[in-house]
């Protein structure tokens, strides 16, 4: 019973508070917040002859984002952007399709076993993405059964590996991002009222209707967190595509990485980054609209 409206009391901001929060805030502001803003500014600058940044206002980089290059309009870049969106979307969708049965299975276990499942899903989340992708490289190699089976079925030439290619990329991406989807979704599915499902079944709803009308609306908070946690990093991913994808499967992440290394075109890299950042912010604000006042339960 809380009998006064303003409890619990917190102290005023004194020197000690500033000393505590100051270094961390300063560190993050100087090295992250300001550079992120600078990145946006740089998107409107241009590249000098030797790869230096020329600070004169130009919209060239933004034009290049929609495909206008030195030699007029070409669809190459747009393809990369669209492919990024597509790969991220398909990865997310695959994760959703797998995560629902997975989390339902988890939620229907006994509590003691549930914890075990939860840990099993969390552990891959922490393992190194390079190592895991490398693992796929081993598995999909030409001498092993998956590639041999594919060759036997005539899907790939005999003696070749299952990479580079879309199949390998989606396999790598989906297994990489599944925990990102499953963990937030599980938080919602676990809270799902079993009685409501029973009631829905009692009313002779078919499984599709039950999913659409009952399960989906009630798991939207977890699902939307999961979609964002999967979609945004999937778009920015470049390890998996670099190792398993080959040149044909380049994504925006690879492109950004190139601008800051080989190509030395920072302003264009900045423009690409800005696009990705805007996209992140958009999806975050979309989530805020959909589920107001909810804090991310999912970050760990």
């Amino acid at each position: 019973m809380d009998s006064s409206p303003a409890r619990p009391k917190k102290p005023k901001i004194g020197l000690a508070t500033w000393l505590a929060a100051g270094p961390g805030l300063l560190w993050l502001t100087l090295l992250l917040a300001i550079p992120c803003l600078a990145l946006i500014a740089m998107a409107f600058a241009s590249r000098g002859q030797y790869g230096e940044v020329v600070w004169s206002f130009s919209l060239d980089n933004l034009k290049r984002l929609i495909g206008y290059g030195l030699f007029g309009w070409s669809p190459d870049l747009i393809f990369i952007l669209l492919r990024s969106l597509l790969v991220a979307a398909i990865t997310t969708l695959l994760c959703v399709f797998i995560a629902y049965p997975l989390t339902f299975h988890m939620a229907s276990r006994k509590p003691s076993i549930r914890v075990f499942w939860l840990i099993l899903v969390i552990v891959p989340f922490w393992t190194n993405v390079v190592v895991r992708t490398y693992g796929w490289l081993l598995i999909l190699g030409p001498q092993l059964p998956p590639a041999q089976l594919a060759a036997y079925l005539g899907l790939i030439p005999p003696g070749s590996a299952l990479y580079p290619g879309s199949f390998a990329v989606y396999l790598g991406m989906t297994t990489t991002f599944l925990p990102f989807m499953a963990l937030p979704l599980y938080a919602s599915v676990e809270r799902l009222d079993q009685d409501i499902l029973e009631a829905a079944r009692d009313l002779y709803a078919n499984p599709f209707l039950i999913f659409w009308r009952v399960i989906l609306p009630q798991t939207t908070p977890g699902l939307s967190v999961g979609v964002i946690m999967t979609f945004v990093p999937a778009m920015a991913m470049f390890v998996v595509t670099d190792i398993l994808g080959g040149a044909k499967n380049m994504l925006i992440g690879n492109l950004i990485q190139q601008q800051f290394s080989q190509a030395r075109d920072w302003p264009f890299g900045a423009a690409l980054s800005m696009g990705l950042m805007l996209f992140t912010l958009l999806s975050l604000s979309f989530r805020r609209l959909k589920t107001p006042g909810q804090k991310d339960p999912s970050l760990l």
Partner: protein
Amino acid sequence: MKARILALVAYSSLILMYLPCLAVAVFSVNKARFGLNWKGFTLNWYQRLFENEAILEATYNSLLVAVITTVIATVIGTALALGLERATWPKPCQRLFDVIVNIPVVVPDIIMAVALVLAFSVLRHLSSVFELGLAALIISHVTFQISFVTLVVRGRLASLNPETREAAWDLFATRFYNFRRVTLPLIMPGVLAGAMLAFTLSLDDFIISFFIHGPESVTLPIYIFSSLKRGLTPETNALSTLMLLATVILALLAERLTRKL
């Protein structure tokens, strides 16, 4: 019938998630030098790790960076959490600080990496610390670690009973005594979990290190990545397996600590 389909998907997805890790581990004890056929069990490749200068150096770098960054980030992050959670900031300040602290959590790694590259390119004119290399690597790891430590410790702080601190105050404790005997012991599990998280994140980080590292500051993930480009060796399998094991153990410990109390 339906439950069986759920179970099937659940088990297959687990298998798919663990298969690559398993493959690396299996091949790390395979006798075959080339190719992927099973030629018998050996620990030879693990032994070889200790003869490989480059690997030893990368391991040394990784551990050095992880230890130093964890210490720095844990102290700064814990202090930041206390500063943010233990005072009433004006609403706009609070909102701004929340955004700043959450950048590393929501923004994709690659953008963080690019932002850091940008920051270093300017700061380099002030001090040579910001040249691409070990020092810059440490600074950039701390940057994202702070956020995660702060997040974990704040969660812990928020879950404490606010009356506990008042009780100590009421019982004649000075501010410092209160912090040392009450607040600190109570948030310790959170601080340790945050530290372990920071350590794992540093050890595991590839994308940011990839952008920031110099020729003398190759870390394990970068070494593995570049060895993939040069061609696979069984040593890489052994190295990767050890890294996986380290991460799994740390992650499980951190998990334990956050669940405790």
